[in-house]
C-alpha cells in the first residue's frame, strides 16, 4: 500500500491550488489547522472561496493576508479572547472582501448536505430574518464566480405539506478540506478525539483532503480500535505529521489553547501594521512548522499539555 505521507511543504505545494473552494475543520479555538494555514501563507496560495463553518484565527490570518476572495460566514471569533475576529471585521468594514452570511446551523447543514451528495437542502431556518432578506453577494456578482451558486437560497413550498414555506440552500462543491487530527496513519486513516465537529462531513465532500496530525502511527496500530476512527483512508490524499499543528488552538487529549498567545494575536490583529509584524515574525520568518515550535519553546508547549483524563490543561487564571 502506498504511503500518503508528505512533508508540510510538499502537501501544500501539491494539493492546495489558487481559487480552491476551501473548508477547514475544527471550531473557533479548537483543533484548527494552523500549521497548514501558515504554510499556505508562506507559499503564497490565494483567491480561496471560504466555507469556514465556525472560523477562528485560522481564517482571520488568511483574510488578513488577502487570500480569501469570498467568505461564506456564519461565525468568526477566537471565542473568549477575541469576540469578533479583527481582520475579518476589518475586511468587511473596509469593503475589502466579498462575504455572505448564513446562520451557523445552515452553514453546517450545507456542508453536511454536500457530504451526503444532496442536490440542495431545505431548511426551516433563517426565515423572517435579514439572513434571507439581505444578500452579502449579489446575484450579479455570484454569476461572475464559477464556484458560487447564483442564488444565496431559493424559497420553496414543502412538497409534502403544501403551504409551508421552506428555504432551499445550495450544497457547496468543496475542492479542498484541511483537517487537524490527533492521529493518522500512512494509508490515510484518521482518528479524531473529542468532538469531530464538521470535519468528517468536509472530508467526504471535498475532492482533496489534507490531514495534519499530532501522531503518525502505523496502519496496523491505528486500526486496533475502529471505534475511535473517524475518516477512512480513501477520503484522504495527504497525511502530514505536524505535532502541535493546531497551536494556538486546542487539541483534545493533547494540549490546551495557548491563551497568552491568543491574546498576543488579539492585540496584533487590531491594526494592519501590527498584523503584518505578527505574521512576519510567526509565519514568514520562522519558515517552517519546526522552526515555529522552536521559537515557541519546549517549556511553553509542555505547559499546555492536558491533564490525563480531563482532555484539557488546568486553568492557570
Amino acid at each position, binding site marked *: 500500500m502506498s504511503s500518503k505521507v508528505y512533508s508540510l511543504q510538499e502537501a501544500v505545494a501539491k494539493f492546495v491550488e489558487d481559487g480552491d473552494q476551501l473548508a477547514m475543520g*475544527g*471550531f*473557533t*479555538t*479548537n483543533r484548527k489547522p494552523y500549521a497548514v494555514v501558515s504554510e499556505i501563507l508562506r507559499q503564497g496560495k490565494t483567491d480561496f472561496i471560504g466555507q469556514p463553518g*465556525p472560523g477562528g484565527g485560522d481564517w482571520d490570518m488568511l483574510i488578513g493576508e488577502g487570500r480569501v476572495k469570498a467568505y461564506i*460566514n*456564519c*461565525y*468568526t*471569533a477566537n*471565542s*473568549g*479572547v477575541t*469576540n*469578533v*475576529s479583527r481582520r*475579518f*471585521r476589518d475586511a*468587511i*468594514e473596509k*469593503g475589502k472582501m466579498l462575504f455572505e*452570511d*448564513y*446562520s*451557523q*446551523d*445552515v452553514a*453546517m*447543514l450545507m456542508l*453536511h448536505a454536500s457530504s451526503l451528495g444532496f442536490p440542495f437542502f431545505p431548511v*426551516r*431556518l*433563517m*426565515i*423572517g*430574518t*435579514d*439572513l434571507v*432578506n*439581505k444578500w*452579502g453577494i449579489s446575484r450579479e456578482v455570484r454569476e461572475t464566480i464559477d464556484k458560487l451558486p447564483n442564488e444565496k437560497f431559493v424559497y420553496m413550498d414543502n412538497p409534502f405539506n403544501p403551504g*409551508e*414555506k421552506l428555504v432551499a440552500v445550495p450544497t457547496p462543491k468543496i475542492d479542498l478540506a484541511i483537517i487537524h487530527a490527533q492521529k493518522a496513519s500512512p494509508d490515510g486513516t484518521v482518528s479524531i478525539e*473529542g*468532538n*469531530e*465537529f*464538521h470535519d*468528517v*462531513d468536509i472530508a467526504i465532500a471535498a475532492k482533496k483532503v489534507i490531514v495534519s496530525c499530532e501522531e503518525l502511527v502505523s496502519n496496523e496500530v491505528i486500526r486496533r480500535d475502529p471505534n475511535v476512527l473517524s475518516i477512512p483512508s480513501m477520503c484522504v490524499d495527504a497525511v502530514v505529521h505536524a505535532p502541535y499543528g493546531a497551536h494556538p488552538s*486546542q487539541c*483534545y487529549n493533547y494540549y490546551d*489553547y495557548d491563551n497568552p498567545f491568543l491574546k498576543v494575536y488579539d492585540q496584533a490583529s487590531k491594526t494592519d501594521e501590527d498584523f503584518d509584524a505578527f505574521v512576519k515574525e510567526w509565519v514568514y520568518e520562522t519558515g517552517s512548522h519546526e522552526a515555529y515550535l522552536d521559537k515557541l519553546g519546549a517549556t511553553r508547549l509542555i505547559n499546555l499539555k*492536558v491533564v490525563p483524563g*480531563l*482532555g*484539557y490543561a488546568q*486553568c492557570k*487564571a
Partner: protein
Amino acid sequence: MSDYTNYTKQEMQAVTIGRQIKDGQVVIVGTGLPLIGAALAKSVYAPGCNLIVESGLMDCAPIEVPRSVGDCRFMAHCGSQWTNTRFVGFEANEWLHDSNRLIAFIGGAQIDPYGNVNSTCIGDYHNPKTRFTGSGGANGIATFSNTIIMMQHQKRRFIEKIDYLTSPGWMDGPGGRERAGLPGNRGPQMVVTDLGVMKFDEETKRMYLAGYYPFSSVEEIVESTGFEIDVTKAVELEAPTPEVIKLIREVIDPGQAFIKVPKPNKEAIQITA
C-alpha cells in the same frame, strides 16, 4: 475573611438567569454569563436540568469554565459529542414533538420592542460601521426554542428599529411569527440586562419592564431604553444571597473567566440597609 455581600452587576445578572431555569428543562447555553447562570442553576436552583451547546456537545457538565462552545472543557464529561447538524436536528425535533423543554440564552448588539435581535452589524449591512461575528447558532435557536436574551442595557442598543435582524423575536407583534412562517409557539420570554428584567406582553408581544435590581431603578431603565416601555408591572428583584455569591466565586468560576471579583471597596454594589 472574604466578603460575599459585595455582589456585582454581573453576578446579579448570572443569579437572575440561574433563577429562571427549572428542573427538567434542556438549556441551550453559550459561554459567558449564561453559562455561569446555568451552572448555578444546575448546582442550586434546578439540579435536574440538562445543558447543551450549539457545537453539538450534549448534556454537558463542565468542571472548569469553558471559553467557547467548542471548548474541550465542554467535551470532557459530556453526555454525547454530536455534530452541530445533530444539535439542530434535536432542536427542531423538540418543536416537532411539541415538547416544551428547551430554553436558550442568546445575546446581541441591538434589540427592538418585540425581541428581534441583531448580532450581525451596526449600520448598513454592506458598509457597516461595526461588524460582529454573525449569527452563530442564535438564528436557529430563536427559530425553534424559547429564549432568554442577554443584553447590555443602553439606549443605543434598545431601539425601535434594529439595523439587521439576525434572530427572530415576536417579529412585528401578535401573529408576526406565524405570518413570517416561523413556529408561533416559540419566542423570546425575557430579556436580562445589567439593569433589570424585561418580559413580553401576552397580548401585544411588546417588551415591558418586569423587574429591576436593588441597585438599579425604573427611571434609569427608562432612560436607558430607546423605545417606550411599560413599567407599571415592575417589581424590585431580590439580591443574591452571600452563599450563592460564594459558590460563583469559589466553585463555578474561581479562575474569573467571566465573573470578575471586585477588589475591596471597588466596583462593588453598595448595599444600603
